[in-house]
């Protein structure tokens, strides 16, 4: 029986089934990783062989995740490699530029075809009132080439991780063009860089200048580094399963699916909890990728730096998805002119960067709106910080009055939220102004330090709320076309706003808190851990890393056991509040 099961297991492990992609949260992936690592340990110092091995393992991983789309990944590797090589060998500035543009256009075309075909078609149809439909010509040609109907020609499926590896490819080509790096001599090395499996599907976006030097080094991992690698893997697993999947299934997804079923309080809380969920989901994956890469002796860049510690939207984007924001800064914002061409151009450049950054996250208008809201937040903050306290107080008071008037005239939930929001900002700004008038900017004494901490906490709180509200537009739905996606997201946002600005049923809040107590306890715990000062986080990370190996083994087993309890936990029953 066991042998038969093992046979099935290995058959499953090495075959492709679209219903079962290899995910970091599944046992199959870790069995795959164990085998890969065992072989890797034999090849670790035979650099070319090791890199070739990891390249082919990564292709196999991608095949397990996306099937024959692996051919597209191979194609991306080929043109990335040969174009960069051509650029590096050419002396003529014009030709170098030509090949650089060719490389960028090719990458963007691949991305546009697979990710944005429906979006562009929808925009075209809206603008010209036509009804053009998307046909997957590439699938048709590929089916003819392989001689069977493998791909569905009626729709274009999105290959997993395409946004990450195309951006990585672009950065490589541009960096070679700018002479920041030389092209990678061996295509196997380059293939390994572009497809390294821990970061292939969910990032971070690794720059060639950061990673290429590592792939020529011999394997080395200290005892402490090993411990930290294990810590990242377990930390990521806990984040993903408990703080993301559990609270998503038991609270967030329900509210976002049918906002009108829930009170204003539940809708608002779901926005906040979603902020934690989306962070735990993304950073959990990144933590696991970082840990796995580290075990193999490679270091991925930091992608998240406790983003909800940010005191303003600008800082948030320096802490959130750092590899993407720095990519956008280096390859979009700065080439557009950055902040070098005056305030107006800087503002325009920020907005273009944020709008396209939004579009990168998903091919529909709601993501563009989300990016736009973040851009507006950054722009307002950039002006805000140079305004005097008195002007700030007056401005927030004026905003508050406008919201009151609009609510009186139109009686809309949006304006009621605006009243509360502007009122809260006004109170904070007013208190800060009064404090500054009487005490000044002295932070040396104890009161000054407390005031400074409170001011920082207040700004962190406001930034968290702002970011949470922008996420009204961030949540995507599966199985929807871009047009439907936008309509769906817009309706969800409208319904959530109508409930948040409408029916709160304050008398039921204690009941609601009790009914969703597990979710809220996890939320509060997650946020407390998130807001812990970095020195404490480093402390427990290092202490874990220095634990004896056998203790680490037991902790790993315990973590898997705990995680399994959350995976198999009964779905929280739907709680009915009679209102």
């Amino acid at each position, binding site marked *: *029986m*066991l042998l038969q*099961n*093992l046979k*099935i*297991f290995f058959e*499953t492990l090495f075959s492709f089934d679209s*219903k*079962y992609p290899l995910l970091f949260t599944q*046992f199959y992936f*870790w*069995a795959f*990783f*164990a085998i890969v*690592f*065992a072989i890797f*340990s034999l090849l*670790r110092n035979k650099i070319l062989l090791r890199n070739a091995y990891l390249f082919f393992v990564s292709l196999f991983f991608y095949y397990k995740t996306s099937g024959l789309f692996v051919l597209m990944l191979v194609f991306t590797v080929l043109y990335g490699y040969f174009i960069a090589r051509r650029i590096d060998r050419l002396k003529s500035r014009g030709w170098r530029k030509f090949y650089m543009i060719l490389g960028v256009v090719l990458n963007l075309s691949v991305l546009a075809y697979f990710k944005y075909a429906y979006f562009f078609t929808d925009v075209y149809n809206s603008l010209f009132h036509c009804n053009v439909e998307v046909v997957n010509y590439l699938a048709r040609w590929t089916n003819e080439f392989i001689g069977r109907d493998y791909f569905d020609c009626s729709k274009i499926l999105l290959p997993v991780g395409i946004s990450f590896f195309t951006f990585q490819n672009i950065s490589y080509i541009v960096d070679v063009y700018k002479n920041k790096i030389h092209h990678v001599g061996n295509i196997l090395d380059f293939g390994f860089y572009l497809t390294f499996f821990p970061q292939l599907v969910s990032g971070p976006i690794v720059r060639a200048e950061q990673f290429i030097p590592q792939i020529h080094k011999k*394997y080395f*991992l*200290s*005892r402490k*580094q*090993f411990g930290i690698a*294990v810590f990242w893997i377990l930390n990521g697993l806990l984040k993903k399963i408990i703080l993301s999947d559990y609270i*998503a*299934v038991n609270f967030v*997804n*329900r509210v976002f*699916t*049918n906002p*009108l*079923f829930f009170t204003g309080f539940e809708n608002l809380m779901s926005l906040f909890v979603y902020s934690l969920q989306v962070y735990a989901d993304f950073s959990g994956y990144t933590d696991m990728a970082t840990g796995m890469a580290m*075990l193999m002796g490679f270091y991925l860049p930091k992608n998240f730096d406790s983003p909800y510690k940010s005191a303003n939207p600008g800082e948030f984007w320096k802490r959130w998805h750092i590899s993407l924001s720095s990519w956008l800064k280096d390859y979009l914002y700065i080439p557009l002119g950055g902040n070098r061409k005056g305030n107006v151009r800087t503002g325009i450049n920020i907005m273009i960067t944020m709008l396209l950054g939004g579009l990168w996250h998903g091919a529909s208008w709601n993501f563009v709106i989300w990016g736009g809201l973040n851009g507006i937040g950054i722009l307002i903050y950039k002006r805000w910080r140079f305004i005097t306290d008195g002007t700030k107080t007056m401005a927030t008071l004026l905003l508050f009055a406008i919201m009151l008037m609009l609510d009186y005239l139109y009686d809309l939930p949006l304006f009621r939220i605006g009243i509360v929001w502007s009122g809260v900002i006004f109170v904070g700004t007013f208190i800060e102004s009064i404090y500054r008038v009487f005490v000044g900017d002295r932070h040396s004494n104890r009161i000054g330090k407390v005031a400074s901490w409170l001011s920082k906490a207040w700004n962190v709180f406001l930034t968290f709320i702002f970011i949470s509200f922008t996420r009204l537009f961030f949540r995507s*739905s*599966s*199985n*929807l076309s871009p047009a439907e996606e936008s309509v769906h997201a817009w309706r969800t946002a409208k319904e959530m706003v*109508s409930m948040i600005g409408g*029916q709160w*049923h304050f008398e039921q809040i204690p009941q609601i808190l009790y009914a969703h107590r597990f979710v809220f306890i996890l939320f509060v715990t997650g946020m407390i851990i998130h807001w812990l000062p970095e020195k404490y986080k480093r402390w427990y990370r290092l202490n874990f890393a220095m634990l004896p*190996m056998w203790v*680490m*083994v037991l902790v*790993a*087993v315990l973590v*898997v*056991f705990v995680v*399994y*309890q959350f*995976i*198999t*936990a*009964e*779905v929280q*029953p*739907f709680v*009915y509040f*009679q*209102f």
Partner: protein
Amino acid sequence: MKIGRIVLFIFTVILLLAAMCAFFPQEGVHCFNVTLRFPSLEKVLTRHDNTNFDTFQTDDAGGILPEMKEDSAFMAVFNDSIMRIADSAELQSVTDIMKCSEHQLKLNDSFLYLPENQLNYFDKFFASAEKSKTEGRTVRVLHYGDSQIELDRISCVLREYFQELFGGMGPGLLPLSQTVPTYSVTQGVTGDFTKYVAYGEGGRDAFHNYGIMGKRFHIADSVTFTALGNEANPNKHVRYFSDVKLLFNDCNGDFTATLSNDDESYSEKYISDTTGLDMFEWNTGYPINSMTLTLKGEADIYGIMLDGSYGVSVDNIPMRGSSGMVYTLIDRRQLRDSYLMANVGLIIMQFGGNSVPLFCDTTSVRTFVSNMLRQVQYVQSINPQCRILFVGPSDMSKNDGGEMVTYPLLPFAIDCLRNALVSNGVAFWDMYRMMGGRNSMVKWVGAGLAGDDYIHFTNAGAEKVGKAMINSFSILYELFLSRKHCDFNRDTLSSRSYFQTDSILNNK
């Protein structure tokens, strides 16, 4: 650090986990009200596809279910038969039309189960709906249900269908205060009132005075009710209304109600001259989409109806958290009078979902079924002329060792419920089978048709259910039209062999 130690570390963790898999009790370990579980080796090493369907297969090409099932072999025969009929003079033959309907019912996969297989079960309702125009009054369809019907997502599909067919407009019956909003109308209320409900949490009434919606609002002074139709609503009939009716009980004989409309300053005041259940009715003479109702005096308000002057009105009456055991709590006489005043022609009851998680054994299922039957019979006895359609619970999933699977007793409960109701003269529409049967909820969630609680539908899912329901109605209505057209004797027909639909309805 030597890499061999890392390999050893990884494989030690895996071996320890494998040992746990081998030795951890499969029934779990109960500890502080929590059952700790760990998978068996077999479960880890093999994959279970939990999207197996016990009754109907779903199509893998995107959607879950086509409007009509496409059994290709059957479709070929069916199309052939249609072509043959169309090509011949037999088209007028009632027999062939009936056969077509029989085919259609089979294609519809028998989601609809009729008492004694009477295909004319809803004829009375269809006939009164058709006569409503000449009689100048609306026929009501009351759609009661649990939270699954909230937001007026399923009822609105039925409403649009019936109103397109028979005429009528408006969102129908509304409570004075609707705190779970609907897509069909925006309503508001100002002033003080006390709510009494027959289900869930809230004030109870010692005299069972709850009214047609299972809840009443007692006002002591002055209350203003506003309603605004959504002009952007994709369902065109629901946007406007021309008749406003108020169902109330005047407590002291001092109750007055004034209707006004901003656009045309339409205003009329009614003063009650009796106590007891009563209904005010305003006809604006033209469609309006907003109105204000000012109520003064002491009264119990049971509902406000926004209708057309004829045709069908479909009322969405969600009872959040209710398992449907609510009707016997409502005063019999009051409920009967309400049904008569409102001219109810069809009652749809959609309950069961809230009881499914509580089923622990077959006895608990049977108890639920007998209680439910009692409720339905109570309504039946109050209004014997009215047709009743019971919509069974949807598929619902629970977490079984990390996999979402159908509640074990759900299929059994649906079978029991169907058999009990159909054998007692109530039509049954099987939503569970319409979804695809066992574990179909998992697929509905994956397809964005149901939410992550594995209970409630999304808007798209609710629309799909509504369309499947009207599909069943439309088959029977066409049959009704055929019979009417040919002036065929129903009694004779019902005894004909092709009406003996056991083979169609009971072959699942």
